[in-house]
């Protein structure tokens, strides 16, 4: 097995294990509490509305929005890490059929690994400081690297046909 395939298979397995470990931790210690918090915030908003306390109702809806913003990104981290890891392992099995030199294939494998780690990481960093430029830039850069590498792999497969 050459270097590019090793990088993809091992990188993919490591990423899948980390993604699953994170999912297990998240399901055990965070998810139920987060979902309960979101439900409670929304219920509070309408209870305050019933009590005609609109400022507190609006505050509860904002809290719901913030909790959901975080929840969506936490779930995305889990699913995108595992999904991208699976894609890397699949490519690892068949990467010899990408019709480029081994050096180019190594760079493509490295780009897939780096992008697959950084893109979801940027998404989760967004929850620490919503609206900050760095996490968004990391997510955009990571996804751009994965997309370009993916396009190059597709082109490599097409050349071999």
């Amino acid at each position: 097995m050459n270097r590019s395939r090793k990088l993809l298979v091992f990188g993919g397995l490591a990423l899948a294990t980390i993604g699953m470990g994170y999912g297990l931790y998240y399901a055990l210690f965070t998810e139920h509490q987060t979902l309960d918090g979101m439900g409670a915030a929304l219920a509070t908003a309408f209870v305050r509305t019933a009590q005609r306390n609109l400022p507190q109702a609006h505050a509860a809806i904002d809290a719901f929005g913030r909790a959901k913003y975080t929840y969506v990104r936490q779930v995305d981290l889990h699913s995108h890490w595992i999904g991208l890891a699976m894609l890397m392992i699949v490519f690892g099995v068949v990467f010899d059929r990408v019709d480029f030199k081994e050096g180019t294939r190594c760079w493509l494998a490295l780009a897939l690994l780096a992008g697959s780690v950084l893109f979801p990481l940027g998404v989760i960093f967004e929850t620490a400081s919503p609206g900050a430029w760095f996490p968004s830039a990391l997510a955009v850069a990571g996804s751009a690297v994965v997309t370009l590498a993916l396009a190059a792999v597709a082109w490599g497969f097409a050349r071999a046909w």
Partner: protein
Amino acid sequence: MSAPRLLIFGGIALIAGGMLFGDIFAVFVLHQNGGRTGEALLAAAQAAAVQDPAGVRAAFTRIGGLLQDRGTKVDTHVHMTDAGYLALLLALVQPYVALPSQRKKRLAKLFLLGGVLLPVGIFLIHYVGLAHSPFSVIGWASVLADSAGALLIIALLGEAWGLWKYFRRSRAYALEPEVIADNSWSQHALLSGGTLLVLLGFLYGAWYAAFDLYPQEKQETAILTSLADQSASDNTPAMNQAVNDYGTLAGAKAVYIAAHSHAIEFGLLAMLLSFIQPYVYLSEVWKRCWILVLLAGAIILPVFVLLELKLGLVAGGIADAGGLMVIIALIGMLVGVLRYTGRLDAGVAE
């Protein structure tokens, strides 16, 4: 049965089972659940309008139940299908897992056990709830699902250990032959089609994240704020409008995410199936037939899911038919793998 064959059978069966569950959910649960959630939200707003906090809480308890019902069913579908994908992946890397064949079989069985119990546990969460649970927020079904997740991780770690030994060249066991690269039309079609589907799904997901995700998140809180304000002024037509807007927004979000994720998942599936084509013991005509049916279904489902926003339930029905095409193609291929194994077993017997 060897570990790769166990994983291929189990993997395809899990994927077909997960997709069948997804199709049944889409036809019989998804839209009905969405409608009932909208009704419950309107009931909460109406209770708030007549200053009835107890009525609001009752409505939100109903909404919580409906969301949990929907969420656990989506998770059952996703986790069953993904466990199947991982099983197929593990079948492919078996030639590089330097462990005794008995241990590899045990790891395969452990993985498949986890792959079955995880979605079963998730499915039961809504029905079992917190009954007889010693924990405050985690019920027995969650414990089952989490334990099954741990089984999957243990099996994966075992496989990683075997791979590590292979690459450290410390193996002393006979390994299975590598995946056959027969450069057939079937393999090329599935590999190229699969990569293209993944790329399209990825591009669409990036576009959605860049242009739709943040506006939709803002729109959600804006609609809820408007609904609270209209409830406070007891404006029934405006409340109805806000609930309708909320339902439309939730539908749009679900549709965008489903189109993105299904294109990528089907792309991965096509690539995985390209590797097992040498083990599909069918005539070339039938092999090509199932591949074309699979790729057609794989493109029809995400495209028509997306068109649901414009064409409504007709597009939803066509999308479900696309999912069914993928399931039928999968079963067709599974029959081919069964025939291949039967031939092998007959050869061994002779």
